């Protein structure tokens, strides 16, 4: 379906002579097509930012004001940060942030260590079945989570922890385990593609110098994979941070939930105060937005690594 594509001016330059612009040193002369494309992008960009700015506006207004005048109104009664502070004091956003850190940091580290170990072995030691294992890991990450949740839920309620009476269900450890395992496939896929580009000669030289396998992996391969690891770490952090499904299904008690899934609890708690919910949601967005502005390149590089080699 290309219905959305043609009427925006991309096809317009066809009527102007495309050759006419080619010899010019300026690559993009201001043609009708460019003007139309710019207009289209400005409209879309405004449409795209409106929901976020609108949420910010509502979050900055007292509930007494929006209850009287609606969300689309001048800021009667002024703007206030009280919704944001309420989200912290009554909504305990800070507590949920801590939960998120407890889950996300170990997940990213363990997933990258395990994935790089597998990827290293599968790409460096060309044993039979390596491709099969690679496919197994990669495919596992592509399954819809809901397709495996039923037995997984049961498994989590049965697997006992060393602590008496505790099972994997409803624990930080449980969420770390499932996030690591589920993200492993993607990381193995990306890292094995990346490691394959490291020339064999480097390893032969290392072996001549007496480097054992551990050294070849930890001291040689991992430093060479730093760009891929950085990109993956950025992606994983965002994905695990944004995870909603595992945390809502595999955790029963609200107070252990990480911030993203806790938003659902807050929705119940502040059911009559959308302004505070909006404030809480925007606070929850801050870490990912920081990642976005600081590490945008890493993030996009990670996505491209996953697709370009695919």
């Amino acid at each position, binding site marked *: *379906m290309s219905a959305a594509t043609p009427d925006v001016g991309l096809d317009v330059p066809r009527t102007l002579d495309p050759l006419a612009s080619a010899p010019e040193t300026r690559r993009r002369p201001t043609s009708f097509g460019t003007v139309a494309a710019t207009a289209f992008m400005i409209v879309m960009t405004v449409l795209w930012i409106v929901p976020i700015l609108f949420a910010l506006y509502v979050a900055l207004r007292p509930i007494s004001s929006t209850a009287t005048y609606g969300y689309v109104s001048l800021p009667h009664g002024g703007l206030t940060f009280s919704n944001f502070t309420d989200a912290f004091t009554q909504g305990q956003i800070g507590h949920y942030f801590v939960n998120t850190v407890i889950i996300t940091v170990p997940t990213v580290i363990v997933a990258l260590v395990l*994935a790089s170990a597998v990827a290293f072995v599968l790409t460096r030691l060309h044993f039979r079945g390596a*491709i099969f294992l690679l496919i197994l890991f990669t495919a596992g990450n592509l399954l819809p989570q*809901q397709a495996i949740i039923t037995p997984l839920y049961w498994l989590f309620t049965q697997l006992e922890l060393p602590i008496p009476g505790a099972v994997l269900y409803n624990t930080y450890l449980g969420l770390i385990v499932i996030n690591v395992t589920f993200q492993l496939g993607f990381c193995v896929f990306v890292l094995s593609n990346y490691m394959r580009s490291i020339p064999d000669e480097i390893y032969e030289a290392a072996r001549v110098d007496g480097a*054992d396998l551990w050294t070849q992996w930890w001291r040689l391969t991992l430093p060479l994979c730093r760009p891929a690891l950085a990109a993956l770490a950025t992606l994983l952090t965002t994905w695990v941070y944004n995870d909603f499904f595992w945390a809502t299904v595999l955790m029963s008690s609200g107070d252990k939930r990480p911030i993203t899934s806790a938003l659902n609890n807050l929705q119940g708690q502040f059911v009559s105060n959308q302004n505070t919910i909006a404030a809480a949601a925007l606070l929850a967005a801050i870490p990912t937005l920081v990642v976005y502005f600081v590490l*945008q390149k890493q993030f996009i590089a990670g996505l491209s690594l996953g*697709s370009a080699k695919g």
Partner: protein
Amino acid sequence: MSAEVKATPTPAAAPATKRRRRRIPVLSRRDRVLVLIMVAVPLLADLMFVWGPAIATVGLSFADWDNLGGLGNIHYTGVDNYRFAATVDPQFWPAVLHNVIWLLVFIGIASPLGMLFAVIIDRNIKGSRIYQSVLFLPVMLSLALIGIIWELIYSPNYGLLNTLLGHTSDSNSIDWLGNPHLNLWAVLVEASWRQAGYVMVLYLAGLKAVDPSLREAAALDGAGPWSTFWRVVFPVMRPFNIVVLVVTVIESLRAYDLIYITTKGTVLPGLELLSMLVTQYILGQTQRIGYGSALAVVLLAVSVVPITIFLRNAFRREDAR
């Protein structure tokens, strides 16, 4: 193992004797143990928490089990669960239809829109970086958060949309997220808002990978930008098209978070999705593990198609090496 660790410290000497298999370095005993650990730990985790449950889902779909009284209470019931889904369950076919609509909207609207964004940004018009940053912004946000901020837009009495349409009184307000004829489309707008940016980034990488001389050659042959794109650029981006297609299908099957936050976790008329039904049967008051599994198998079966396409695309070149 420690006794023999130092016994064979010179694996580098070995390849000379086995020239035919020079790519396989002979491993010391310690290295072999290390290899075993490096593969076994992730593999066992993957089998235990991903593939095991996937297989168990298929098995349980032919059984009846309420998760009470232990594993002995599982009764084999053949294809009863599937028959019940297809003929009795009033939520099943709406859910299938909604998943299909979700997929069609992603393929027919969100993906072309994302591709269009990418093509325009790739032309480097003024302000491209700003457009790209803003259009990609929703991809960073969790779907739960997206659901919450869009509730403000769709709010019947206060919301942006009804205010613009002049439908804010109790008598004429439009309940975008409650009305079963509207709510799926309202949620799909939210989902596409995010998906388009995702597709855009994937295609931006694809467009950068296209050799510029191809376009120049096409232009010299008199092809306009329109036909250059569809006849030259688009076919060259084939691997990216496949990735986008796979991502689109899988995201459509996984659709869950937005619906859950919108319905507060219940299954609302108009917003039935297979993923929502599956979790309803394990988290609800009465657990129907077998029936929930049968619904999950439908998701699993459909997901096999994009997964196979992706794997063939990703690993074909490897065989050639």
